[in-house]
């Protein structure tokens, strides 16, 4: 872990993403194709910071309709109803299902937002070449990546309900426009987390030899 240790980057080597083969880039180049399997090779994920920003901005934009628009439209003989995520949470809370309300609120509102904020923080720190608490930041990244695929539980619940409750005459449930936005937010944050290169956290700690770049 010490700054004195050698890294592939410092030695001018890139690892293949697919087969792990080490190779040095052609002179003057920063990337290339793996001489063994032909996959693309980079020192660092290309344009990581820019891509992460783009994806984060996209997910922030879609986060708003995802929470404001109805996520579920249900209709039964007693009338039809549209629910947003928050109205569902409120309903669960008022009807006494506090644990469920908390689960849905955390999974659908808090986690995606926390993920976006965390990634934005990591990306900013990397962009500013911060050397502050690299271990903690790396740990944060691991959490973000881990949680990512389990967030937005309700999307899965709605997908299940839509598939199951289609008793035309009695009751139907349809996904509202917010469901699409929610799914997009899930995918975009996951991709944003993937496009972030955690190695960049450590780069400012190495001696800058002039080869580092974003």
């Amino acid at each position: 872990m010490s700054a004195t240790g050698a890294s592939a980057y410092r030695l001018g080597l890139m690892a293949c993403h697919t087969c792990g083969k080490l190779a040095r880039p052609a002179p003057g180049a920063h990337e290339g194709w793996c001489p063994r399997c032909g996959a693309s090779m980079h020192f660092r994920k290309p344009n990581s910071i820019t891509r992460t920003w783009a994806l984060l901005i996209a997910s922030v934009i879609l986060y708003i309709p995802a929470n404001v628009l109805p996520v579920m439209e249900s209709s039964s003989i007693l009338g039809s109803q549209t629910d947003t995520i928050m109205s569902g949470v409120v309903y669960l809370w008022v009807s006494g299902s506090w644990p469920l309300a908390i689960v849905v609120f955390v999974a659908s509102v808090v986690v995606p937002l926390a993920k976006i904020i965390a990634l934005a923080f990591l990306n900013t720190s990397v962009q500013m070449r911060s050397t502050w608490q690299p271990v903690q930041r790396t740990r944060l990244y691991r959490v973000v990546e881990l949680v990512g695929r389990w967030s937005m539980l309700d999307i899965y619940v709605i997908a299940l309900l839509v598939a199951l409750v289609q008793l035309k005459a009695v009751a139907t449930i349809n996904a509202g426009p917010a469901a699409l936005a929610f799914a997009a937010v899930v995918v975009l944050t996951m991709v944003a987390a993937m496009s972030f290169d955690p190695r960049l956290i450590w780069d400012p700690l190495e001696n800058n030899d002039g080869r580092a770049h974003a």
Partner: protein
Amino acid sequence: MAEHTPESDNLDRVATAREQPKSRWSFQIVWLIPIVSALIGGWLAVKAIMERGPTITVTFQNAEGLEAGKTKVKYKDVEIGMVKAVTLDKDLKRVVATAELVKDFSPHLVEDTRFWVVRPRISGGTVSGLSTLLSGSYIGVDTGKSNKHRASFAGLETPPIVTIDTPGREFTLRSHNLASIDSGSPVFFRKLQAGQVTSYQLDKDGKGVTLKVFVNEPFVQFVTTNTRFFNASGVDLKLDASGIEVQMQSVVSLLLGGIAFETPDDNGRVVTAATTETPFRLYPNRAEALKNPDTDLAKFVLVFSESVRGLAPGAPVDFRGVVVGEVVAIRADIDPKTGQIIIPVDVNIYAERMRLRSRIAAKAPEARQAFIDRLVDKGLRAQLRTGSLLTGQLYVALDFFPQAKKAPMNWAATPTVLPTTPGARQELQQAIASVAAKIDRLPLDEIARDARTMMGSADKLIRRVDTEVTPDLRQTLQSGTRLLQRVDVEVVPEAGQMIVDARKALVSADRMLASESPIQQDARSTMREVQKAAHAFRMLADYLERNPSALLMGKKEDTP
């Protein structure tokens, strides 16, 4: 570090990556993602805003059945919105329901759009809103026709009787009072239900009631400017000079009250279809309604000296069976000079109904006065007459009494006094009085005394018959003979054959019972004779017992 050198060697043996053509595309293309998501987000937002319908507020007396987020707004049973909030207004007098409606409905939110709460209710014999027992109350809507947009409404407390798209037309009726009419009361035309009373309200001056009635489509064409609306509630029982009149539209109107309309024959009047603005009066009953509206009124005063008990305002003035006017007012005046009480009766004569052959002459007042002068000169007089012996109601009759005293008209006075003549009732009373006087003069006391004497002697006679008929045959027979003789003389000869028979039998029995008679030789025949006599006598006694009047009146042929 021993392995340092080989590491450097190994590094030298690392393969070189194949060169990649330089491309800045990936850097550019990544920004498409936020742009696309911004577009999607923007589109969703615009769509949401575009689809968001108008928000309205409706006030109600109470919030029964209204629940935020649950209560729906329905038009023709189609859901068009949802109540979002139910609050109290500032002075806590009403509740305010805020509802969000679908976008398509916003053109229909105009001034006369009506909202009400549909709850299960039972009123006026109808049950409505039963479905709300299951689904909960909802707010019903009826669209208006106005062009003025509106977003806050005062909700109706009861559902409207007719919706705006019901084919037909509304009419306004003015009435003195509401009688038994209510919202929803039926309106009849020829005893068919043709509409309903939609609303009523007290006039601002408090002097009457204005009703709105809705006449449905096929019937609306029969409502003309000449149409009369009248109260048809329940049984209209009228006691007046013409006797008893019973009118009834239907059992429904008996229970709910009702209005009927009828269009009298248009006597040459210009008749056009009525509009909503046409003013109509609600008459208290059919007879009142179908009276001709007489415009050309001639006012007269009739002065009666006799009692006008039984004469009421509205009583007809009749000319040989034709109603030509009505009594307007009855007063009682004391002449301060003479102290005499006179009863002036104001009447309206409908000049139209006594049309002159020459209408031009009738139009000019002088000509009319001259004409009436001539009639009075010929003996035209007003007289009180009994219309119905049953009710004792009076009416005023105009007729000619050629023997009547001359009574010149004084046209200077207003209203003019039309001469009268004592009523037929008065004559009748006089006749009855004279009959009574005659009866009074009859010697009833004497007649009674005579009758009593007569009865007394009859009584005595009967008692004598009773006491003197003894078991002693002989004595009895003698007495019987005596009696019969007396009866014979005292009683009318018509006492009958029976008496004759009895006497014969008695005489023969008497003779046979004498000691020197040959009765001993033929006891059997004697006994037979006695038996016969006894039988005849018993029959007489029986008869007299049953019909003592026979002593007076003689035996009737048909009596057994």
